[in-house]
């Protein structure tokens, strides 16, 4: 009983929870900044720069605006971060899932809203007009990403459900297990448009260029973050980085889960057994997941960031509800007719 409790606590606090999110999230964001800089022929900050930034912000004074509600202002960033960390617990790491019987794909879709909501409430409650504009844009961005995301998830559910004979599969663990046995979904022709659509959703969900209208520093002073300073601001920046991890690892599990099967075969080929094999599998899973996340960050976020300029909010909406949704819809229709 106590052992169980310690195990679950370790899941939440260390892996794949808090500590893991903290390290990989900030690392991914550091790599992203470096890559963008190199693509633009700049030297760029060191890869560990987000860590320095985070700790520097933690040492700074926190100014609570007189107009803001103290509790809401300070708690909102923490709730958002906690929501993201908990979300990460439901995303499998190939063969390993911390909690597989708590939430399915649809729940994850809605848990993704919690960080956005927390930032809207935290910023909006200060009464700053910049936050008001930021809130409006953030909500429209969320709305934009929702339709393609829904279509992609339904397409994957249908595809895996049809292949496993259950008709429907909402469990992310099951989706990964199916891919480990039958190869990645990215290898299936009908799922490629959905994968591309999901790649396009990643920058929108994480609020990076060119979809960062909600936080446009140069026009609305980071919108909802305008009044934040010190450690709470640091926590928001951290959440932002963790969201990159969440979205990229979600992509890996939805479309590249087959790689986990390869890892298992590799460990089997090494002839290990028992605890050693299990430990090695998890270690390899984590390393491979991280490398894939780095590649995805480079492709979906850094590259797009380096070559585009910020879109207006109505352009963002139009782009997601036409181009990206159409791609996802193609996949859904193909999956529907069993292709």
């Amino acid at each position, binding site marked *: 009983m106590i052992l169980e409790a310690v195990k679950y606590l370790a899941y939440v606090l260390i892996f794949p929870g808090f500590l893991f999110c903290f390290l990989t999230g900030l690392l991914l964001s550091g790599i992203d900044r470096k890559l963008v800089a190199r693509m633009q022929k700049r030297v760029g900050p060191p890869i560990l720069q987000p860590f320095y930034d985070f700790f520097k912000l933690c040492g700074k*004074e926190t100014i*609570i*605006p007189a*107009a803001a509600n103290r509790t809401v202002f300070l708690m909102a960033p923490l709730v958002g971060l906690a929501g993201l960390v908990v979300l990460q617990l439901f995303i499998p790491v190939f063969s390993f899932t911390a909690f597989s019987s708590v939430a399915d794909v*649809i729940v994850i879709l809605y848990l993704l809203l919690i960080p956005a909501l927390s930032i809207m409430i935290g910023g*909006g*409650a200060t009464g*700053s007009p910049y936050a008001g504009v930021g809130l409006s844009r953030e909500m*429209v961005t969320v709305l934009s990403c929702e339709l393609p995301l829904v279509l992609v998830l339904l397409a994957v559910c249908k595809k895996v459900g049809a292949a496993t004979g259950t008709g429907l599969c909402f469990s992310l663990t099951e989706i990964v297990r199916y891919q480990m046995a039958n190869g990645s979904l990215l290898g299936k022709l009908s799922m490629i448009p959905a994968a591309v659509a999901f790649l396009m959703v990643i920058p929108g969900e994480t609020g990076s260029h060119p979809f960062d209208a909600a936080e446009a520093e140069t026009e609305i*002073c980071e919108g909802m973050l305008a009044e934040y300073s010190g450690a709470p601001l640091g926590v928001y920046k951290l959440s932002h980085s963790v969201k990159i991890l969440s979205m990229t690892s979600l992509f890996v599990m939805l479309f590249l889960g087959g790689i986990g099967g390869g890892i298992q075969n590799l460990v089997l080929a090494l002839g290990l057994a028992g605890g050693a094999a299990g430990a090695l599998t998890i270690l390899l899973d984590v390393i491979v997941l991280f490398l894939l996340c780095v590649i995805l960050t480079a492709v979906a976020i850094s590259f797009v960031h380096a070559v585009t300029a910020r879109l207006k909010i109505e352009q963002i909406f139009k782009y997601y509800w036409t181009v990206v949704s159409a791609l996802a819809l193609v996949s859904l229709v193909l999956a529907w007719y069993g292709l």
Partner: protein
Amino acid sequence: MNMLSLQHFPIYSIMVLFLGAFLIVIFGQNKVFRHTVALLATFASFFFMAMLFKPVMLEGQTIAYWLGNRVPAGGYAIGIALEVDALSLFFGLLVSCVVFVACIYSIQYMSHDDNVPQYYTLFLMLAGGVMGLVLSGDLFNMFIMVEILTFAAVALTAFRNTANGALEAAFKYLVVGCIGSTCILAGTIVLYAQVHTLNLAQMSALIPGNLSSATKLAFALLFIGFCTKAFLVPFHPLAADAHGAAPASISVLISGVLTKSGIYGLIRLSYFLFQSMALGTMQFWLVFLGSVSMFVCVTMALAQHDFKRLLAFHSISQIGYVLASVGLCTAFGISAGLYHAMNHTLFKGLLFLAAGAVLHETGTTDLGKLGGLSKKMPHTTVLFLVGAFSISGIPPFNGFASKWMIYQATYQRAVETGNIGFLLVTICALVTSTLTLASFVKVTQSVFFGQLPKEYENVKEVPFGMRLAMGILAAMCLVTGLLPNMVTRYLTEPAARAVFSVVDYINNMMGSGYAQSAMAAQPLNPDVSFASAGVWSPVSWLCLLMIALLAVTIVAIAGKYDRVSIKTPENRSGKYDLFYGGEETVYSQVGGDDLFWGFKHNWRHYFSFMHELHSGVVNDYALWAVVALALAIVYALIVL
């Protein structure tokens, strides 16, 4: 408690409400007396319903009550009957519970109005009408109750008749509501002429084997009649006007209770009387109507600039979810739909009460004029946010639990039947949910966040009684969201099972064996399974969230998260003011109906089309009703 006294409980729970209404007419001038009577009557009604919970929900009994003990003789049910199966009890519990909470709220909310005794009389008449409707076992009595509740609702809509638009709203409601009531009466007459009985159970046995053009016509008439009561598209503009004008406590009843009576009527009509749901075309009809209502009304809500009108449109949008899910004709779908109906009553009640609290303190519900109230009314803000999260389906509140079931149910149905239409319903439901969130973010930003206008600087928090009523509903939103398994096991699954046991319903009323002998074909009796593909356990999720939150909070506090931020009046300098980019601090509220212009800009053609369509002229709405009736008749004649 023996069976004999239990039998009387349904009639008691209707009677106390009417009795209370009559007592208040006579002795209502005394303030203490009328409050006591109103509270006692509504509580007693709830109590009698709750006492039936064990025999009906847990033991699966059906309680039949014949007024004056006129039991059926010679195979004909002539007497007036009440029949309480799990479906009726589900709605009965819901109605009586919300009526009680609304009554608590009314006491302080209505304290500044004139003619308060009349208010309570009408309030109790409305509640009694709905209770009578859901417990009745007789089609003509259902019509009587529809009349009572419609006229009580019309009168209550115009209760604040000095307010702008109240009389106009009541008039529109009266006209279209009467078209609906007339349809129900006409349908009842036609059915009576065909099967020579008015008892629901007997009709359920006789009609399916006796489908003629006349009964099909009656179906269409009754269908449209109950649609008007539920304000489904194309009757939605009435709801907006009525909610905008009515006192908040009445809005709670109209949205939480009256629309449910329409849904109840539709279920009884299509699953019991006609048993037509085995037809794919009937399922299509309900699901299509539900999806259209869900989507059209959420977009209409996004364009509103009045708090209560916005809520009114959302109310129909959520009823659309309920209807779409109920129309799937699967046990899981009905269970999900009823769960959402219950949740809708709770969270929409809460939201209307919050809107009422804002109106009570500021005197307006115009989103363009309000702002920054969270500093003045912190409790109302938190309670409103609970309601807003619930309706937008944010875990772990109740709206999420039921919507999640609806997504599963529609998608499951799509896969089972291979019909891509159901898949579109899933997508529509998911997108509607996000649009709902958007419009509640708009309300939050426009009313509670942002900057406080000068004229509201002296606004205070609402009195305790009003907060109590909101608190009860907010707590129920959270509890029903956290314990979805309990709710489905004890409330919605028995009700869904009742929907599929028409034979038991008939036999209980008419004597066992009646259904088998009278019915030509055995009614649909599918295997009732509540299995679903998804997993969601809110309690575990909440535990995990709490652990994570605790962990980050401890780290934050240990790391002096809010160091040197001493907020005292002496310390106030420019540093603690809002940032304005070096400009002088000016009043600049971001909010109102154009908050999401980035979204609305892309949909401008749609919105201007809708704007032209909703002319606000009652002639147009009456015309829509007639057109809808004509379409329904044609459809019923073709497909049924």
